[in-house]
């Protein structure tokens, strides 16, 4: 008998299979067609975006953040990737009997501070407590509503050969930070999670909106999953330049040691942009002028093709960048 495995939650090929073969089979409607981070809901005046996400991270406190900050950033970033200005959040808590109230307070304070920074109000909530052993401390679900920016039309169908792919900063930081904290792996330099709300980063580039064609915050499955989804949805190839992909040396070292590809590791404070070729330099300058985009760089281009992500390696060779499948696990040797 087939069962749900941890791989079904990896954000890569197994998750996609579950969504396509099960959830969409029963729940499909036109709003779900694009399966984007946030769904755009038409209203008489200005379109709204809605998104929801559940946070089950372990440990709940990690270098650079905690589950509270993450639950607000994650939903704000999904709205941002949907081209919306975040306005309202809901927060639902599933707590395990015995969880320390002092830790819960820390988490909620962290949520409040992040929401305040982004001028977002938490407007509804829910709390459930389950008996000890039936949950892992604390799970948080957040739903977000935002107002869609005018002049921004985001869709894989909008992308064209020649468009530039830009990433707002280094990749893989969150994945390594959580992994090393969870597993007690001691690396020489501690890597901090990049957990951050990106709504202000998008508003900083508002002048270039007509040229921005697609956005995504590469969380589970990392940039490899996001870019493969884009390539397949657009029916175009994406050509990455390995030498330009920003990865911190300590993230690279830890990934090499564990046999993991930083492109498949989760990020919680990065945005991928596809932008019209002529506006790429301007967008890059604007991003680099923002504190959360200081390390922004053009990492590749869109080319006509059949939906593959390819990488020109540092050595000058080429290889595929595959859709990740299964939770990242360290290798034996």
């Amino acid at each position, binding site marked *: 008998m*087939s*069962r*749900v*495995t*941890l*791989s079904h939650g990896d954000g890569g*090929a*197994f998750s996609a*299979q579950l969504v396509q073969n099960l959830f969409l089979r029963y729940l499909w409607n036109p709003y779900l067609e694009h399966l984007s981070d946030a769904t755009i809901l038409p209203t008489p005046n200005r379109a709204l975006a809605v998104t929801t996400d559940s946070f089950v991270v372990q440990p709940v406190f990690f270098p650079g953040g905690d589950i509270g900050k993450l639950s607000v950033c994650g939903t704000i970033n999904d709205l941002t990737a949907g081209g919306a200005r975040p306005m309202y959040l809901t927060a639902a808590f599933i707590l395990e009997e015995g969880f320390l109230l002092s830790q819960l307070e820390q988490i909620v304070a962290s949520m409040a501070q992040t929401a305040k920074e982004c001028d977002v109000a938490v407007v509804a909530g829910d709390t459930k407590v389950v008996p000890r052993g039936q949950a892992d401390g604390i799970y948080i679900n957040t739903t977000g509503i935002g107002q869609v920016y005018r002049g921004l039309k985001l869709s894989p169908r909008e992308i064209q050969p020649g468009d530039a792919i830009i990433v707002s900063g280094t990749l893989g930081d969150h994945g390594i930070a959580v992994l090393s904290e969870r*597993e*007690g*792996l001691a690396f020489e330099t501690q890597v901090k999670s990049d957990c951050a709300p990106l709504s202000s980063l998008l508003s900083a580039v508002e002048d270039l909106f007509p040229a921005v064609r697609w956005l995504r915050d590469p969380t589970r499955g990392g940039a490899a999953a996001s870019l493969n989804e884009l390539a397949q949805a657009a029916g175009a190839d994406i*050509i990455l330049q390995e030498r330009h992909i920003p990865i911190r040396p300590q993230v690279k070292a830890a990934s090499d040691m*564990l*046999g993991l*590809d930083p492109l498949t590791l989760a990020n919680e404070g990065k945005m991928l942009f596809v932008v019209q070729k002529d506006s790429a330099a301007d967008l890059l300058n604007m991003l680099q002028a923002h504190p959360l985009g200081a390390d922004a760089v053009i990492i590749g281009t869109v080319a006509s093709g059949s939906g*593959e992500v*390819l*990488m*020109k*390696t*540092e*050595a*000058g*060779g*080429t*290889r*595929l960048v*595959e859709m990740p*499948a*299964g*939770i990242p*696990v*360290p*290798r*034996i*040797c």
Partner: protein
Amino acid sequence: MNEQTVSALIHRIKSNITQPLRLMEVCGTHTTAIGRCGIRSLLTPELELVSGPGCPVCVTSQYDLDQMIMLSRQPGVTIATFGDMLRVPGSETTLELEKAAGADVRAVYSPFEAVKMAQQEQDRQFVFLGVGFETTAPAIAMSVELARQYGLDNYSVFSCVKTMPAALHALLGGGKSSLHGLILPGHVSAVIGRKAQDFVASHYHLPAAVTGFELTDILTAVLALVEMATKDEAAVVNCYPSVVREEGNPQARALIEKVFAPSDANWRGLGLIEQSGLSLRRELTQFDARLRFPVTPQDTPENSACRCANVLLGEITPPDCALFGSKCNPLSPEGPCMVSSEGACAAYFRYERKKAVTL
């Protein structure tokens, strides 16, 4: 990485090739690095790089896998394993599926974590799946030493440790090898030493190069092999002298010898090879999971359509297998070479599935 060094190496490799050559990278980590760096796309078609039997997950026999799965079903037993093993298919199921069905299977990063768990949860039996070559053997041996020192009676090792020289003898011994050289793993060599592999040249008259896992390391080894092969010379050269010594690491070797004794082992693809495995020494039987929890699965024949065995012997490349990319893919792997992150099929699927990539 120094671009000039890389292009100079590639130029020298290409200009030295006077005949078609087949080199085998014995180690799965090399296979992965070759795919990830796009090395094949940089070289000429006359130079073929084929994968060998050096992925410890891939050479684990189906019978051993079925035993591990049966162990995971024993009440009160926790299986601690490197993550690679979770999705490797046994006859009917995987450890990942057993975990989803309720078995206590935990992915760990080192055997020491398993020892720590055993200390903390003394009401459970912890079995560490010891899969690996000489590289992982010292850490596994140390975990047994620690468990002994701590007086733990709830920690044991299911040893599937194998030794690389034995595999090379089995690979080359048949006399049918069409290889012109071997790229030997730097990490195994760091333990056993360069000298321990001299037999490849002296006995089989095959050039070999010990090297590391960076692009320049691999290209340096390829160049050394191409130069030797074209001159019909054979030696085992050390292209990784910063890490690999002639005699290896005496402390690590002593630790292995203290805990393990050579024993016969079953290899996927190569079959039973005498004295090619490492079992726990007789005086340490209390830490030997094979003796503490004897399980005898049905001896199910391996999937005959899966050609992992031929891949491991360098007889075919992964795309030559009829299942590759269709019935066998990372979502539903038929054989271990598609599951393991070190596996040749996974590396081909991940990095080189698209033929004739030109950018």
